[in-house]
């Protein structure tokens, strides 16, 4: 372990990536809303990003593209307790109960209706209920950490859960992930597919985390952080966090009455 990668090494790489981004933008390059797939401070990306640029498809030339429609999900695909992660077992999970809610929108601000929102997370101690998870924090027999729901007519989703704990990982020595909830969402078109992570405000681990810092644009990174919303807090029960999700990419060109988005 003579050459073990330290936080200081990663910090230098993160700073260099940010400086390079600033230079690009000052040189007239567009704002980057998403991480570059080639982001060395996150070591797992090294062998898993394409070297060749993606081929751009001009969707305006063919409204029949498969990618311009989206899989449908409905009431059959979710159960009532799927959106309340505190009620999925016989006992109460340990931890701070939270309500996480927001709207699913496209870039024009239109709600994405009746579409699937999936989420998963570590328990209050920072442990996933995944077989391969090796962090030796305790499992909670009353918490699986998986939720699903459909957005309502205004694009709203809402989960009741437990605030997840931060956890260590092996990117470098003393690497810790800030507490986060994974989200997977669909839009009105497959082109709008999004998998991402929601963070909690004022987490001191933010600057050290190469995954969050892979979003090099300050404003874009801030959009991954929920806001505490006292109006969402439930008296005697849970603290509220609001997090809206805005889907990128061209939307569907078709409409379907009374079901999914325009």
């Amino acid at each position, binding site marked *: 372990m003579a050459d073990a990668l330290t936080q200081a090494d990663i910090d230098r790489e993160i700073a260099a990536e940010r400086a390079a981004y600033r230079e690009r933008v000052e040189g007239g390059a567009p704002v980057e809303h998403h991480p570059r797939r080639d982001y060395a401070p*996150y070591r797992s990306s090294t062998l898993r990003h394409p070297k*060749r640029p993606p081929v*751009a498809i001009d969707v305006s030339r*063919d409204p029949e593209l*498969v990618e311009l429609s989206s899989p449908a999900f409905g009431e059959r695909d979710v159960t009532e307790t799927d959106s309340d992660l505190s009620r999925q077992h016989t006992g109460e999970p340990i931890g701070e109960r939270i309500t996480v809610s927001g709207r699913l929108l496209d*870039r*024009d601000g239109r709600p994405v209706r009746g579409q699937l929102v999936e989420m998963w997370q570590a328990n209050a101690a920072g442990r996933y209920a995944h077989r391969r998870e090796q962090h030796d924090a305790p499992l909670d027999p009353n918490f699986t950490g998986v939720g699903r729901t459909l957005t309502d007519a205004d694009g709203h989703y809402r989960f009741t859960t437990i605030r997840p704990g931060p956890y260590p990982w092996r990117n470098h020595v003393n690497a810790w992930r800030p507490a986060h909830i994974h989200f997977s969402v669909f839009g009105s078109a497959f082109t709008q597919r999004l998998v991402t992570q929601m963070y909690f405000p004022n987490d001191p681990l933010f600057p050290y985390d190469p995954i969050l810092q*892979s979003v090099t644009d300050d404003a874009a990174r801030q959009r991954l952080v929920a806001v505490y919303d006292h109006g969402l807090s439930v008296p005697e029960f849970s603290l509220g966090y609001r997090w809206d999700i805005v889907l990128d990419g061209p939307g569907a060109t078709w409409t379907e009455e009374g079901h999914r988005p325009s």
Partner: protein
Amino acid sequence: MTQHASGGAGHLPPTPSHTVGPFYGYALSFPGGEDVAPLGHRDTVTVHGYVYDGAGDPVPDALLEVWGPDPRGEMPRVDGSMRRDPASGGYAGRNGVEFTGFGRVQTDADGHWYVRTLRPGARGRSAPYLSVCVFARGLLTHLYTRIYLPGDEPAPDGDPLLARLERERRDTLVAGEEGAGTYRFDIRLQGEGETVFLEFP
């Protein structure tokens, strides 16, 4: 700011993408995710392959989503891919009758995956294809690609995407014929033989 006013013609900045990470398996996977075709349907095809990284090693923790039209080229609008059992809270599975067009499969420990779905029909100006979305630990933003089946292979220059690609690159999007309705489609994330990936600006 994470709160956005509704409506308005303004162009809202999008929520950034993040990696799916290593621990999505117990959350996103569902039984029958890879068995999209209605039971016994005569237009069923099996597409399978490996996902490889830039060192040529199989990727054992990739998640693929496959989305495609029915054999007549119609996009399914039916839900029920991950039908639940309200009594047990578990999965009831697909009903074996309806075609949702949506499949989701994790690579296994060897980096191998398969889906059984219906042979896609042609739409618009394109040759028939299945749309694929690739997620993995280490992949900060998902990747799109397409699976074209041989035999459906377009007249040269008959598909707007394939016509733009040089032969060698085009071949990465066409599955290999293995007989009995089975096709091989490997995905190479990086390096030699790198799969053609797509973006939709």
